[in-house]
């Protein structure tokens, strides 16, 4: 269960960087960048073994969250929910009203085209997306990837605070910026929560006008 140990993952990231980290448009201004904040609900943590239950994303354009362009899609082709409804609360009857994973992934691929992918703990979500894209022959790549967890971690480290894993959980990070608690938990509310966290993080750096994407990587 390699992915359940993000601490280690980050330590080894330097030589595992995918191509786009080196070639992306990191000199672009943050305000000129369109970002897609994604959250997945999963049946487990291992991309090789587990499945995607639902995908949600929220769009950020010119520093604003465009609520109308949010998407939340359930995967009706899930094979084994097993114990995961305990976490996401989605059962089979709900799934029946969803979409096939191919539809979902091609929608997501369209959204990601030419945009920056943002997640809270991106390696987990990306491992699932990457696998799905690969299986379906989708070649879309986000231009960049941002991780709100990583941004938060380096911010805390810069302040010379010892970082315990628990402090990097999404609600804990949000609380640090005075953002409200979410009552409903699903992929969409988590995606929006992550998007809001990113806006707060960006604006705590400096005036967002001058922020370059590279500062967030």
């Amino acid at each position: 269960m390699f992915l359940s140990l993000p601490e280690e993952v980050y330590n080894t990231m330097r030589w595992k960087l995918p191509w786009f980290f080196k070639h992306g448009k990191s000199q672009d201004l943050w305000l000129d960048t369109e970002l897609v904040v994604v959250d997945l609900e999963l049946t487990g943590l291992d991309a090789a073994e587990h499945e995607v239950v639902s995908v949600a994303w929220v769009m950020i354009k010119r520093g604003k969250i465009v609520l109308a362009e949010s998407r939340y899609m359930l995967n009706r082709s899930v094979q084994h929910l097993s114990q995961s409804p305990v976490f996401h609360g989605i059962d089979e009857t709900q799934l029946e009203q969803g979409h096939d994973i191919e539809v979902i992934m091609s929608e997501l691929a369209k959204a990601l085209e030419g945009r920056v992918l943002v997640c809270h703990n991106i390696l987990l979500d990306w491992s699932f997306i990457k696998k799905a894209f690969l299986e379906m022959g989708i070649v879309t790549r986000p231009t960049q990837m941002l991780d709100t967890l990583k941004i938060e971690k380096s911010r805390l480290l810069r302040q010379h605070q010892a970082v315990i894993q628990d402090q990097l959980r999404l609600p804990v990070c949000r609380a640090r910026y005075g953002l409200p608690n979410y009552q409903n938990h699903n992929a969409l509310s988590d995606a929006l929560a992550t998007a809001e966290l990113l806006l707060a993080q960006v604006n705590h750096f400096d005036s967002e006008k001058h922020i370059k994407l590279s500062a967030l990587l």
Partner: protein
Amino acid sequence: MTQTGMTAELQDVLNFVSKQSPLNELPSASAHYFVNHSEMVYLTAHNQADALQGEEKYLYLVRTGIFDLVDVSGEVITRLSTGDYFGYPSLLTGEEIQSHLEVQSPGLILMLPQISFDFLRREYKVFEQHFVKAHKKRLLSSHYQERSKGWSERKISKLMTKSAVVIEPSATIVEAAKVMQVEGVSSVMITENERLKGVVTDRDLRNRVLASELNPEMPVSSIMTPEPKFIFENNRVFSALHLMLKHNIHHLPVLNEERVPLGMVTSTDLLRLQNSDPVQLIGQLYKASSTQELKLLAKEIPVLLRSFSNTVEDISFVGTLLSGLTDALMSRLTELFAKQHGKAPCSFSWICFGSQAREEQTLDSDQDNGLIFCNDIKPAERAYFASLGEFVTSHLVECGIRACPGNIMASNEHCRGTVDEWTARFHNWMTAPTPQAMLNCKIFFDRRYICGDQSLYQDLNVQLGEIGQQELFFAAMATDISTNSVPIGLFQQFKLQRSKDKSKYLDLKTRGVAIINDLVRIYALKCGISKANTQARLKALKDHMQLSKRDIYNLQDCWRFLTQLRLRSQIEQHQLPANCINPETLSSMERHQLKEAFHLIKQAQQACVFKFARGSL
């Protein structure tokens, strides 16, 4: 609940939006529309200018954070927190946004573009009305200083147009008449070294000169009304009216803080204002010919107060108004008693204590009053005052002012007495500070003259001043104050009380306002300030070294804030005990301010104990 597919609903944002007025009154489709057409930004000091001054116009709704809306001149129009809108004036008028934001604490803002705002306006009448109304209110409040301030709240100095017409006391009556003719005024002030000595009016010239065939070459001082009533420029118009109606005078000299005459306010100046309700009511109270008529008039007081409290900005004025009405009731009842039972056998004076004296009476306040009579009263003459006290207090009850549960009323013989007897009572309490004595001090040290012979009241004040500063008394009082704690716990949490039906509440009066009153009283006593009103005392304390300017401002603000909340709780009445409030009904900013206020009171309490009791708790 969550829908799937193309139109994903953001449940939490939707919940938030649909709770906001006016959307909470509209079909749920309106909130869906709002959310699906909004964008969200995180607003900080850095990016607020860019976010607000784009080409497109938006309606802004604050989701988190605190922002001050500041107008072009740099004045704060309003403070915005969760659930507040801004930007609508520009949407309604099409003009550019004039104001800007000062970010107190950054947060999330929902932005609804003009085109969607217009859609909701067209679709829902209530939505349109909400923002048109809010816009009107904003316009009013931004010009509040100039226009919408209630006339009775206006300062005398705004009303007074002419500069002071004055003449020396040695001038002749003829000279005085000529000055009045040239200036075109109906009265003249007699001054010596810029000090007001007297007033001469048209009527004096007729009654005291022509009708009495007095030689007009006599000095004007021989016909003036010496030591006339006057008013300070910073007093309210309401106070001037009150004074003129009470003493049946038509000319009232206006002085500045240094007591230099500035001008005259006449009854005609005020005449055009007379059609307003509170003044009419006070005027009618002073003229009522029977107790029945008084009772009928008194029934209008709660109605008047409720309509009035919505229009006044400075809420402390409501207390002043109610005390003024009670004063009028008491003096008219005294006159009615004299009509029925003959004149008083010796000189006497009505005084009031507690909330009436502090001019912070509310509709729930009870009576606290007493009678002073002159020292040479004969034992047989006391019976008259016993029945006077009984008459006035029982009729006050019928007029809606509750009897005092502690029996501090002139119907009780312990609340009647000669100047010397009153002095002895105070002396007792101050030298033997038992808990009961401390309680008495709290009530009796806030006192105010109402009607009758004012010199008796002044004699009492002089004698009390001579008792001197008892260290022990102040220490006991400071200790007593510190036993009453503010409802704030160790970690800045409210400590709530529970009512019988288990709803939680905070008592704003006994655990907030009353502590400030107690604190201010002890400092005022220490400095020999004879005023009873807490705000007036605080103002007077600025000239003494007991409290720093900053502490005084803090206490003033706390008092105002708490009083405002308290009066609001009385008007809105959430099924809680009187003067109590459930902090959950407050906005997050008000909760924050309330905690801050309690915190300041706590600090002031500690400082007071340290100062007067030397920390000996």
